[in-house]
């Protein structure tokens, strides 16, 4: 029985109608999770390019020793902006874009739990990013590195507005992120279709749930750290002032208590994508589903107990280092479990090498390399030679690009047909994959060597006599290959948007709920909310089950395979609203005012309160209740 027999083809709504109809205003006021997802996607793509160009400028400067292309201050600003943008304004929002588009569809919901809050999260992300980048024309880019260690970032050693832009922009973005965490946590717990038990959730949704929890627990400590930094800088407090009896190392703790879970925030969604893509393209359900789920939970949990591994050279003493080094190593176990289960899923399958699958396989191969260098860092004495060198830079680009970025590209190729109703070109997709894969390895593999041979990170130049010239040159060449790697991607997106082949509801013969609705999905997603009676509901009516749950059909439900063309009864959807935007603007104004004008802060507060009250007293959905 193939899925095409089941999958309802609702006809092709096509790209330019339905989801995409309506003018700018309809996008500004939208509270539809799919549209917000697309806004997130496009915005973070722009930030990715900007940060990518910054990365390439770094590489250009390092192409040869004692280069004088960038002056040191500019270089320092660029790596700070590159890291900060990649993590907070490209990586995370790109992930949230996928949460937005995919999660409600995967759980059989019509929207997220709080659509207007969702819109607010988007505006705060956009405004925080724009605010950070307004430091560029003002020539006040932050230059403290993405983890902004005190006391270099105090007002004494970093006068000027640079670090204020960093602090305030991340505070603003953090509020939106925490709101998003609450939103997705509640959505996934509460809005699952009938029968969608936890052990039937698609893996991507599972990871979204775990990541929401990570956000909720990891961002508050960061927020507190940022507030301390802001107070130290602006109001003369002494949170990190050694002369006043404080300890500047506290900042490092607060940052990494957040920062390490943050890297799992960045990787787990990619793991989720891959856990959905590999089964779909192997035509075989995920091997060891419960184990893959629990290993994700374990990674997240352990992730809170390892932060000191970023501080092995601080001199915290043998006991602390041993405990945190050991805890860090433990994480290799659940991560390995995932890797092995993915391979076991492919084992015995019928593997189709479409672009999503190529990126997924690329992730398994590349992430392993990054993970293994992670384990080398996890040994505190060994790390004394590695920390703050290009060996670390190699590690984290392997996990961030070979992991997060590959995973997100995989997801992009996988869900693009769902989002637009059009197919991407496989030829261009494959070109994109191979170019990216090669460019990535050429850029970052040599950094292992340059690091071990003595190249510290965050240095705008290096001496000729160090023997680092060749490795750096190769890295720079690789970075430029990246530019070409992006060409097929953009060609592909543009071509598909203009004249891609219609996709149909389920072009990949994939097993999860999002593939039952038309592509692009209607405003209300599901004409009738389906009842789910098994994992992978579009596959295998009755299956033998090894480790997991054995299928039983719940009576009285609506089969996910039969989505009628039109909803049988009127569906109430939330109305568009501009209050989130008003509130977002208010908060932006407050943030900008915090650079030095109490009056502007108060103005922003007034606008925020206006937005809040408008929001609270606006009927949220026509005719509801």
């Amino acid at each position, binding site marked *: 029985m193939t899925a095409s027999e089941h999958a309802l083809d609702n006809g092709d709504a096509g790209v330019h109608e339905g989801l995409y109809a309506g003018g700018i205003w309809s996008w500004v006021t939208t509270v539809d999770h799919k549209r917000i997802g697309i806004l997130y996607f496009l915005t973070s793509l722009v930030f990715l390019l900007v940060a990518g160009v910054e990365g390439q400028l770094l590489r250009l400067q390092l192409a040869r020793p004692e280069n004088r292309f960038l002056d040191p201050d500019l270089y320092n600003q660029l790596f700070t902006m590159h890291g900060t943008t990649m993590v907070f304004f490209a990586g995370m929002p790109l992930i949230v874009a996928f949460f937005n588009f995919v999660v409600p569809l995967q759980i059989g*919901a*019509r*929207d997220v*739990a*709080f*659509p207007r809050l969702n819109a607010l999260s988007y505006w705060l992300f956009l405004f925080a990013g724009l605010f950070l980048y307004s430091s560029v024309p003002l020539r006040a880019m932050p230059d403290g590195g993405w983890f902004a260690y005190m006391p270099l970032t105090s007002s004494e050693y970093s006068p000027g507005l640079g670090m204020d832009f960093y602090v305030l922009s991340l505070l603003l973005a953090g509020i939106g992120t*925490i709101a998003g*965490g*609450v*939103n997705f*946590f*509640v959505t996934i*717990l*509460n*809005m*699952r279709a009938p029968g*969608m038990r936890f052990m039937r959730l698609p893996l991507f949704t599972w990871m979204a749930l775990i990541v929401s929890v990570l956000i*909720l*627990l*990891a*961002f*508050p*400590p960061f*927020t*507190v*750290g940022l*507030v*301390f930094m802001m*107070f*130290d800088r602006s*109001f*003369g*407090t*002494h*949170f990190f*002032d050694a*002369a*006043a*009896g*404080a*300890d500047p190392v*506290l900042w490092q703790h*607060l940052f990494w*208590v957040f920062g390490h879970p943050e890297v799992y925030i960045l990787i787990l969604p990619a793991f989720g994508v891959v856990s959905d893509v590999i089964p779909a393209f192997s035509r075989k359900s995920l091997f060891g589903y419960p184990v893959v789920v629990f290993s994700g939970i374990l990674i997240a949990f352990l992730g809170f107990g390892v932060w000191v591994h970023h501080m092995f050279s601080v001199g915290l003493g043998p006991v602390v280092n041993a405990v945190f080094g050991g805890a860090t190593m433990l994480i290799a176990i659940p991560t390995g479990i995932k890797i092995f289960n993915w391979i076991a899923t492919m084992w015995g399958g019928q593997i189709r090498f479409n672009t999503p699958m190529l990126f997924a396989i690329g992730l398994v191969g590349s992430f392993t390399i990054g993970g293994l260098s992670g384990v080398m860092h996890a040994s505190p004495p060994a790390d004394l030679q590695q920390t703050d060198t290009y060996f670390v830079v190699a590690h984290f680009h392997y996990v961030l690009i070979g992991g997060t970025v590959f995973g997100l590209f995989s997801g992009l190729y996988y869900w693009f047909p769902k989002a637009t109703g059009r197919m991407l070109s496989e030829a261009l997709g494959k070109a994109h994959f191979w170019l990216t894969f090669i460019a990535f390895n050429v850029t970052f593999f040599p950094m292992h060597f340059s690091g071990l041979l003595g190249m510290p990170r965050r240095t705008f130049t290096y001496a000729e006599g160090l023997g680092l010239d060749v490795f750096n040159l190769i890295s720079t060449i690789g970075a430029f290959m990246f530019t070409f790697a992006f060409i097929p991607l953009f060609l592909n997106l543009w071509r598909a948007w203009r004249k891609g082949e219609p996709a149909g509801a389920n072009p990949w013969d994939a097993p999860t709920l999002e593939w039952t609705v038309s592509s692009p999905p209607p405003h209300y997603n599901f004409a009738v909310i389906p009842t789910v009676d098994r994992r992978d509901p579009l596959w295998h009516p009755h299956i033998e089950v090894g480790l997991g749950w054995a299928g039983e059909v719940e009576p009285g439900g609506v089969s996910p395979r039969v989505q009628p063309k039109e909803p049988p009864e009127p569906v*109430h*959807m*939330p109305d568009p609203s501009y209050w989130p935007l008003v509130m977002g603007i208010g908060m932006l104004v407050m943030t900008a005012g915090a650079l030095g004008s109490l009056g502007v802060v108060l103005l922003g507060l007034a606008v925020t309160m206006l937005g809040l*009250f408008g929001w*609270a007293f606006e009927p*949220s*959905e026509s005719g*509801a*209740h």
Partner: protein
Amino acid sequence: MEGPSSTGVSNRKLAMWTFIGSECMLFGTLIATYLIYRGRNVVGPYPDELLNIPFITVTTFVLLMSSLMMVLALAAIERNDLKKTKIWLFMTALFGLIFLGGQYYEFNHFVHEGLPLSRNLFSSTFFVLTGTHGGHVAGGVIWLGTLFVRATQGKLDATHAETVEIAGLYWHFVDVIWIVLFTLIYLLV
């Protein structure tokens, strides 16, 4: 959009509890900082010279009692007793304001005794920790205020019991944090 709930808890209530869970980390970090820095002050004034236990006991009592008012307001609206609802909401907000007044007095007193925010490590940690709590109280007072106004306009009845309940969850949480701060800051100097 309030759809059916898979867990049996409404979205809003679950969201409030989720938010409270997250707030635990926020206050946890602030408290950790306070505790780590306790006793590391290098210039005075020191906490034991300034903290006024009898005074703060009174405001603590006021905040605790506001929590009682809050549950009474909830109980009232569940019975659809709108008059009582109004009264108790008002009293809760009022007690919250009294607490804030006390905090204002305390801060002011400290500043006059030579402990402005930027004075030393104690002032930094103390003001930011208790100030964050005070900010939460202030937010709660505004929230309760709007509920009170809605109640006086007759726009709040038993169908809105959950709205009051959620505001109450927030309010009690802020109270619970103060229970911890009162012990850690004032009694364990």
